[in-house]
């Protein structure tokens, strides 16, 4: 597609010399960034490279310490997000900013400003109409919101509470929310992280439509293939600095990674062959679990894992992955079903007994520190958390633990000033290595790695993949719960797809595609797919 941008046009906005400092951390250092109207501009960088900070500055959430922002040629000083909205800037945050208990309409109209009186512009009339009835009789606004959304090919039911919307619908609500406020500069912070490939494609169509209507779109991502297919230009950030801006058509993915990371990186995962004996390690039969609100989370789930193999689990956020891990580890009690390790029943045992049966779990929650580690303790004491149960007598032998901690630090190349240094002061990648290292050192039979690379940069992610592959070669059975479908296909031997707690089928990773997995994630079973039925 030919980008419909003209080089001579005035930029929709330009940021010059933006510096933002948090305490001792320089998140942005003299960053320059500008986007033209009608352009989809990628902002690429690793985690912690300052992409979100820069966009939070543009949307008025952070105030820059230095630098200036121009919108349509006017210098602006945003004191609040409201000021940025007034200048036509709308941001779709990675973690949606919606009140779950309120309807989509309420979320959309709250805080909307009245358009100028007697304006005859089509959009202003529509806005005035929506606002007039927004709080008195919301049902009258629903068709108006639908009418507006359909212009961009977006569909959702404005009358239901946000909590009942799917992730992609929530994103649609966010997009409509900013568009109805008259945004013509749209910032999307990692919008595809939570979507299936099909939903992502739909979003791309919507974004292209908006760009063709003159919107300037900033697309934050670290997925190279998306940038290559969707965007016109790309600006690369590294360690808080802007490195380069170039046309996407003039560059390939490898160059981009090099610019983003600062050196060449081999992007292929070295996949050893699985153990051909296919000995069963974990067997799950008919697992069913509903949470305290009686919402079903696992639905008659059955599968087996083999020694010397990585079984991947794919699914949308909240598809039952967390509950599956917690059932196996003994944290929650499923209402029905059996879990066996080496043909021995472990359902009903305490988490500690299950650990002693050789099951190790490293679960990285969204906030990364919430589970598995005590943030204010050092590496040694965090290792002790699992270790102490196995030692004899009432006293702890700190010496042994310290030796072990040092070994883990060395083997996994964890960067820390010392083993007593509180883990919360470490970087995300190092924290995750601590959890993984601790679990590996228990010499488990079954290793559950849930979201092990969540929030990690490319380099650290590959270190973790290699560690998991090492485990596989040591004949450990690995259950890998992941988000990135490309990685799942490259890393795992087989992939099980969950949808609303149901097993949609297990595919061989060498004989599947992202699209196939994506369709299963949204509710088509493997059987139906192979028969040629598709609901997407």
């Amino acid at each position: 597609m030919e980008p419909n941008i003209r080089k001579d046009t005035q930029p929709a906005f330009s940021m010059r010399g933006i510096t933002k400092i948090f305490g001792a951390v320089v998140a942005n250092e003299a960053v320059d960034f500008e986007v033209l109207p009608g352009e989809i501009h990628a902002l690429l960088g690793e985690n912690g490279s300052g992409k979100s900070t820069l966009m939070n500055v543009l949307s008025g959430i952070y105030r820059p310490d230095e630098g200036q922002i121009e919108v349509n040629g006017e210098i602006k000083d945003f004191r609040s997000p409201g000021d940025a909205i007034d200048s036509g800037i709308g941001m779709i945050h990675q973690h949606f900013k919606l009140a779950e208990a309120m309807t989509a309409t309420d979320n959309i109209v709250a805080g909307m400003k009245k358009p100028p009186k007697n304006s005859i512009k089509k959009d202003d009339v529509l806005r005035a109409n929506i606002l007039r009835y927004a709080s008195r009789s919301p049902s009258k606004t629903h068709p108006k919101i639908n009418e507006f959304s359909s212009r961009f090919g977006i569909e959702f039911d404005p009358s239901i509470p946000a909590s009942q919307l799917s992730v992609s619908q929530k994103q649609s609500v966010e997009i409509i929310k900013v568009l109805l406020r008259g945004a013509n500069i749209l910032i999307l912070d990692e919008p595809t992280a939570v979507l299936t490939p099909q939903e992502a494609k739909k979003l791309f169509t919507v974004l292209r439509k908006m760009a063709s209507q003159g919107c300037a779109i900033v697309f934050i991502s670290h997925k190279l293939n998306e940038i290559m297919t969707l965007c016109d230009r790309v600006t690369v950030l590294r360690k808080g600095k802007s490195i380069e801006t170039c046309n996407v058509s003039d560059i390939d993915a490898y160059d981009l990674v090099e610019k983003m990371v600062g050196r060449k990186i081999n992007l292929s995962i070295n996949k050893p062959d699985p153990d051909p004996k296919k000995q069963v390690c974990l067997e799950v039969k008919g697992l069913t679990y509903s949470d305290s609100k009686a919402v079903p989370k696992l639905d008659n789930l059955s599968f087996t894992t083999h020694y010397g193999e990585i079984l991947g689990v794919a699914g949308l956020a909240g598809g039952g992955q967390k509950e599956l891990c917690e059932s196996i580890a003994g944290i929650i009690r499923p209402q029905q079903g059996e879990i066996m390790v080496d043909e021995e029943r472990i359902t009903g045992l305490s988490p500690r007994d299950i650990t002693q049966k050789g099951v190790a779990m490293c679960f990285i929650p969204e906030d990364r520190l919430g589970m598995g580690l005590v943030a204010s303790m050092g590496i040694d004491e965090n290792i002790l958390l699992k270790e102490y149960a196995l030692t004899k007598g009432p006293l702890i032998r700190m010496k042994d633990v310290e030796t072990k901690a040092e070994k883990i630090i060395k083997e996994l190349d964890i960067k820390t000033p010392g083993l007593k240094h509180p883990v919360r002061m470490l970087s995300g990648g190092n924290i995750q290595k601590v959890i993984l290292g601790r679990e590996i050192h228990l010499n488990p039979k079954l290793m559950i790695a849930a979201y092990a690379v969540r929030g990690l940069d490319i380099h650290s992610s590959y270190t973790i993949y290699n560690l998991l592959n090492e485990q596989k070669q040591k004949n450990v059975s690995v259950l890998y719960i992941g988000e990135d479908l490309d990685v799942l296909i490259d890393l795992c031997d087989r992939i099980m797809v969950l949808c609303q707690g149901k097993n949609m089928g297990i595919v061989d990773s060498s004989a599947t595609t992202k699209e196939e997995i994506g369709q299963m994630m949204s509710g088509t079973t493997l059987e139906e797919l192979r028969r040629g039925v598709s609901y997407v």
Partner: protein
Amino acid sequence: MIGDFFSATGSLLSIVFSASFIASAIAFSVVMLFGTVGELITERAGHLNLGVEGMMLLGASMGYFAAVRSSSLFLAILFACVGAGFGALLYAILTVTLRVNQNVAGLALSIFGAGLANSLGSKVSNTSTPDNIAKIFKLKPFSLSSPSGPFLTFINKAFLSHNIYVYVAVLVAVVATVFLFKTRAGLELRLTGENTAAADASGIKVTRIKYFYIILGGMLCGIGGLYLPLVQQGSWTSNMTAGQGWLVVALVIFVRWHPIKAIAGAYVFGSLTILGFSVQLNERLSSIPIFNQYIMSMFPYLLTVVVLIAFSFRKKAWPGPKEIGRPYFREER
């Protein structure tokens, strides 16, 4: 034995459904109704203000002081608002701007407010409400002059023979309901309490909103407190709210952050408060140990405990505004 039980229940019911009991229960619920609506508005902005007791006393003492010194009803209400609003302002500075723990700030306000109010109130403790103001509240604007038939007589006595303060309290609850659920400003307030970051990102001025409604809520508590010395008792006594400010905090949960339900909620608590007095006047009942005066006066607080326990079981149904207790800092990473 069973006969005793029935006759006791019978006399209890005849008390509870008598026009005079209903009338005095309504009169006794005024303070809590104002307080509940005020606290409810504060909590809808995401702030739990435990300083209701302090703000009620501040409003009562300042307002009553102004009433005694100026004999002006307008100044009395104005100063009740100023006193309680000042307490709420302190709370807002602490919790909104300085992001102090809301429970601690609220408790501090309660103690501080009571102390300040009692020392100010002691200056007017030997005086009674000025005649011109007392006269206003002796009027019963909606009372029927000659009700015909037993039904109208009952309605007249129970519901229509109140002073203007009572009807204003009900009106405030109704207006607050319409405001919360039928206006855009109310929507903005609710969004702020549900998800401050979302409200902020939607262009709502959240700091302004929080300050405004915390202070407004405090003022309503103050007006509620003023009812005690100015109308109900006609004179000042130290700590005269006697824990009603604490009942209000439970009442807000009891009515599920809904002002129209606060009318019924406050009535239930008001009737429990005076049930003790009424039972004492009944010879049959006052001889039964459970209706002992001291046990009866425990009832509202007992109900509070029950409400809180019941709520903790049903918390998942709707736990109230999500932001309660969470300080908001826009630049948080």
